[in-house]
């Protein structure tokens, strides 16, 4: 993570099927900054986050990392990002530790970060339990533990608080703050009043065009 890290979107438009989800979305995010994404259902928060991962292509506009389009070098972009979608992608037949170890190994993270990451989201007691015995909130915490285990410059979190209790929402807030303090970038979509001190805000309102505040 260097101070030159910068995520910039200009005049983004997104189509889903034939429908225009949003257009004219622009924002810029420097090292150590977070962006909170809000908006009613269907306003395109998830679609925007998927565009930022490179999983989808914008219908118009550009997404750049430190000045270069992320679609010019998708391999480099994947190496710097960590994404959380709506689904937890927890394999019920693997233990909690095995689930997290797989993601850490997939991203080339150090195995010694697994135990602290599980402890961070209070999953140490369940570490050897098959994940099919987890509650929904615990599965969410396991998905979030990836962010404590895997170093990445850009965090993209889509409704990360779904199913979390207050204590774990606070844990997540602290984790994002720590990430930004270390020079990382984060884009978080949320309905809740997730406390992200100093975060910029972007409200999506639908296809009529938005401005970053």
């Amino acid at each position, binding site marked *: 993570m260097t101070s030159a890290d910068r995520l910039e979107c200009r005049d983004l438009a997104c189509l889903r099927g034939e429908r225009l989800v949003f257009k004219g979305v622009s924002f810029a995010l420097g090292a150590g900054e977070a962006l909170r994404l809000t908006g009613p259902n269907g306003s395109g928060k998830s679609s925007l986050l998927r565009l930022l991962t490179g999983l989808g292509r914008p219908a118009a506009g550009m997404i750049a990392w430190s000045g270069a389009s992320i679609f010019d070098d998708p391999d480099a972009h994947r190496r710097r*990002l960590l*994404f959380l979608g709506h689904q937890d992608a927890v394999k019920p037949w693997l233990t909690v530790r095995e689930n997290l170890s*797989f993601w850490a190994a997939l991203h080339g993270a150090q195995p010694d970060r697994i135990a602290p990451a599980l402890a961070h989201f209070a999953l140490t007691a369940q570490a050897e339990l098959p994940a099919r015995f987890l509650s929904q909130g615990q599965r969410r915490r396991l998905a979030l533990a990836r962010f404590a285990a895997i170093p990445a410059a850009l965090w993209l979190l889509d409704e990360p608080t779904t199913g979390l209790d207050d204590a774990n929402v606070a844990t997540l807030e602290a984790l994002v703050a720590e990430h930004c303090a270390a020079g990382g970038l984060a884009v978080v979509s949320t309905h809740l009043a997730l406390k992200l001190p100093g975060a910029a805000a972007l409200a999506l309102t639908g296809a009529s065009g938005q401005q970053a505040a």
Partner: protein
Amino acid sequence: MSGFGALLRRDLRLALRQGSDTATVLAFFLIVVSLFPFGVGPEPQTLSAIGAGILWVAALLAALLSLDRLFQADYEDGTLDYLLSAPAAPSLLVIAKCLAHWLTTGLPLVLLSPLLGLLLNLPSAAYPALVAGLALGTPVLTLIGAIGAALVLGARRGGVLLSLLILPLYIPVLIFGVGAVEAAAAGQGFRAHLLLLGAFLLGALALAPFVAAVALRQAAE
């Protein structure tokens, strides 16, 4: 490369824990092959003549049976999105999944085939060609199948669609696989057949992962 090893180990571990895929495929193979003596009559000459074809067609259908699950579980629980946004190249991850699939379904088929050859009164000279042919051919079935499995993600009744898409593509493998066994049974050399199957394998290994990765990205969008 860390992503390749991680996904391979995870898929093997999942297959081991669940165990049902391997068992289903082997049981299907066994049942289809043992239906033929009832259908065409138990005369040793008849069975011996059509044995190679029966074994190959049954192996092909058995491989197909497990292929529609290749990416389906990862697609349904959201894993696919995370795999496609992970550092490893998507085509490399497809190869890892195919290798795990072959080790848990293709390889057991290869190992079981001589036993079923006995059931069909296959001449003893034919066994090396049967095993070697299946060893080269079943990975091709998996790789071609991966393209189909990626294409039908999200489709209703994907399994049926998958059969219609990829069974025609299996015909060359079938022809040369059966050809090798028949040549060996007739006392001729079967090296040319195996070389062609090997060429199919190299071609599929070079092309299928890229095509499947493109199809997966389409499914994720």
